[in-house]
């Protein structure tokens, strides 16, 4: 029996008469890498924000890490990590200061922060940069660092909103190594992406079209379902039916 960490039932977000998210239902299991795919404007980011407690759902049900997104957002926040598509560390703080800040915000003790920072910096090979301002690092490193910060407090689930935008393929590969590593430690990874090669790295993926989930399964299941051998084609077949494009 797999442990469910995210469960939604007919979750919707309506702005006026625009159904940004239109009754989505799915489950995500512990330690899984769950890919959340869809064209621009399909409603991915809105759905993710509802799950993170950043946006209040219009209707439906959703439990994240065992807590209700309607009533227990504060508890959800303690148990999740989040990395947005914008690079989101403080450029004018050093690596160590960023770690201290975010560790502190999540209520980690000073000793814990020190020990974890040490091992993280060793793991990323940033010993010489730890006292440099984050703004001076190359983008690839910043991205890896931002991910490491988002799971620094050992959350149950980490939400990644297009984390690899604008990064070269080598760095992307390294980035996914970090994601695998986190999943092995039992952290559930919920990731949105545009890159279909990245979709292949996920355990299961959902395809969102016009606010609804049109397909859900492992990459091989989806390829079989759409009679093709690559994810690009799956995406293309689904996205072609979409009525709305870039919002």
């Amino acid at each position, binding site marked *: 029996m797999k442990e469910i960490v995210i469960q939604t039932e007919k979750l919707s977000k309506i702005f006026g008469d625009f159904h940004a998210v239109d009754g989505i239902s799915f489950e995500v299991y512990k330690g899984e890498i769950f890919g959340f795919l869809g064209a621009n404007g399909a409603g991915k980011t809105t759905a993710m924000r509802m799950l993170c407690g*950043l946006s209040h759902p219009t209707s439906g049900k959703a439990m994240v890490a065992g807590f209700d997104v309607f009533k227990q957002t504060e508890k959800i926040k303690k148990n999740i990590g*989040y990395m947005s598509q914008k690079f989101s560390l403080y450029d004018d703080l050093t690596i160590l200061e960023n770690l201290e800040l975010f560790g502190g915000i999540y209520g980690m003790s000073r000793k814990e922060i020190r020990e974890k920072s040490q091992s993280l910096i060793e793991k990323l090979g940033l010993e010489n940069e730890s006292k440099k301002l984050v703004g001076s690092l190359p983008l690839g490193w910043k991205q890896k660092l931002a991910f490491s910060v988002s799971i620094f407090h050992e959350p149950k689930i980490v939400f990644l909103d297009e984390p690899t935008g604008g990064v070269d393929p080598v760095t992307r590969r390294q980035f996914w190594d970090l994601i695998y590593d986190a999943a092995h430690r039992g952290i559930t990874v919920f990731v949105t992406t545009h890159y279909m090669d990245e979709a292949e790295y996920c355990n299961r993926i959902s395809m969102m079209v016009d606010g609804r989930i049109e397909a859900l399964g492992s990459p091989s299941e989806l390829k079989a379902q759409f009679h093709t051998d690559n994810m690009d084609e799956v995406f293309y077949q689904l996205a072609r039916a979409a009525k709305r494009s870039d919002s």
Partner: protein
Amino acid sequence: MKQFFVFVRKEFYHVFRDKRTLFILFGMPVVQVLLFGFALTNEVKDSPVIVVDNAKDEASQAIIGKMYASHYFDIEKAPLSHNEILENFRDGKIKAAIIFPANFNADLSHTNKAQIQVITDASDPNTATTVLNYATSVIKSYQEELAQNTRIPYRISTEVRNIFNPQLKSEHNFVPGVMAMVLMLICVMMTAISIVREKEFGTMEILLVSPFKPILVVFAKLFPYLTLSMVNLVTILLMSVFVLGLPIKGSILLLVLLSMLFMVCCLSLGLLISNIAKSQQVAMLISLVGMLMPTMIFSGFMFPIENMPTLLQVISNIVPSKWYYTIVKFVMIKGLGFSSIWKEALILAGMTCVLFFVALKKFKIRLE
């Protein structure tokens, strides 16, 4: 609580690592005090003046002597006719003419009344008024000297009283104005910019997803700017006392406490702006146009409010700087106590409370 201090420390890092902004923050009050104190002064020194002494008696000589002694006039004595004087005015050679009638001393000692004619070039009304005031203050001081020697009250006409500022020192008016301006600028603009920057860079999103309470974000932001403003307040006061020689007549404690009230008021305004503005530039623009301009226009520091049309006078009442300016002027320059300014203080406190709570309420917890 630990979370809070971690966050406050981060805010201080932001402030201290941005060397350029820091320089502006600390340099601005110094530059403004110096500029307003020495460059943009309304003081008129060494104005060319013609004195026509038809009396040539003891009293007229004494007054002319006093005028020489002051550094306000560059006096030329010449027995000119009325038309010749007019010509000098037309050519712009003189700012004023002072004419003593014949029998000046005789009039003064026999009838206790005497007149001096002062003609000014009113095409430049500011200078004209200032020169006139200088002249009358010199005459007045002579009058006071006479009064000391005898019981009979002598009267030399045109009486203009310059209470609180007998030397017409222009610094007196601008120090409270600079205080209002600097505090306004730092508190409003810096708070607004620093919050909007977090929105722009996407770090606000991270903070909102974290268990860190949004209200603590607000308080942590206010902390460094309150500290900076205090430093600036002290700088301005010290410069005012030691560079401009303008003592603080009233209670320093009262001045500092009410300044802090004004700072909180401005911080709330900054917070409100940060809710509206989408980018740092917009935040800056709103702060400058929406806050700094009204401070300059409506506080009474540059333009007297009493001379404005009624509508503008009414509008000036909603500008917090106006009340703060009045408070500082009363406490610092006139040396009045709380009993004289409680009304202004109460209005400012009321504004602060309303603004602060509206700002907190509006501060967006969720992203749209």
